[in-house]
């Protein structure tokens, strides 16, 4: 059997030019959707046993342990991030270890496209599609937030102060990419609340 052919959602897009920030697709990201109740001690303990970390209970936070991250999605839902290579095995282990609890584990590594936005002004670029208060103290590194972005649903992960990952469902990848191309154009750059040149 020949090698399996694997294609990321935005494999056909060229590297963008003329933007005020950097934009690229992250392709090597495994994702596992975990459902279970945060108040179910047996479930939480079993999850910790596999992942090495407690699933975060606080809304919109994330934790990491080695190359594994756990993103809070809801009071009974998390998204586990790891490398693609590891995802299948990790999902299988989770299913086994959590088998005795009320839970649902699904490998969703192919369900979303991951767009990495990086640079000064990245928050302003995102504000052209999101009504969240991204300039507030709520959006420190590690913060996770589902949001409406342009005309679609997205998941926002603050990786560093000027580095954001935007997760969108795979079928919307081109739309999200095109939307960022349009709003991150250098001549449309906006800098909010910083020192400005004095208007006449």
């Amino acid at each position, binding site marked *: 059997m020949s090698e399996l052919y694997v294609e990321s959602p935005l494999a056909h897009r060229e590297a963008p030019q003329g933007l005020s920030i950097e934009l690229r697709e992250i392709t090597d990201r495994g994702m596992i959707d975990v459902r279970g109740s945060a108040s179910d001690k047996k479930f939480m303990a079993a999850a910790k046993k596999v992942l090495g970390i407690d699933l975060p209970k606080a809304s*919109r936070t994330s934790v990491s342990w080695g190359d594994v991250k756990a993103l809070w*999605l*809801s009071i009974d*839902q998390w998204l586990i991030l790891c490398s693609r290579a590891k995802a299948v095995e990790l999902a299988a282990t989770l299913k086994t270890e959590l088998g005795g609890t009320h839970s649902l584990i699904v490998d969703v590594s192919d369900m979303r496209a991951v767009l990495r936005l990086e640079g000064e002004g990245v928050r302003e670029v995102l504000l052209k599609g999101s*009504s969240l208060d991204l300039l507030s103290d709520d959006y420190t590194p590690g913060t996770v937030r589902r949001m*409406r972005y342009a005309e679609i649903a997205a998941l926002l992960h603050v990786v560093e102060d000027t580095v954001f990952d935007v997760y969108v469902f795979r079928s919307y990848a081109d739309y999200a990419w095109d939307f960022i191309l349009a709003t991150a154009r250098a001549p449309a750059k906006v800098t909010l609340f910083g020192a400005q040149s004095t208007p006449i």
Partner: protein
Amino acid sequence: MLVVHCPVCGAEGDETDFHGGGQAHVRRPATHDPVNVSDEAQRDYLFIRHNPKGLHFERWRCDRGCGKWFHAARDTVTMEFKAFYGITELPPRELMEQATGEWATYFKDKLKAEAKS
């Protein structure tokens, strides 16, 4: 554009991040006694709605947050939200007392029951 607050996950945001689900506390008769549901009871469940000018109780979903349903009390004239509370809960007592018209009738028994317990 209203600002809505989710009592489940604490998210706050524009109404477009949420999904309005209509009147709260509508009872589905078939869940309780599937055999004896009159045509009128079914009509009331499906179509008759409290439609007050003023304090109203309704359902919302945290659509772009935790995905959970919750209840809200809102003034339909000023648009001010008076409270957000759980999907299986009754509104805060003072709001049940402030309710008027059909809502006052609806909450009368609940307040009595609460007073007893």
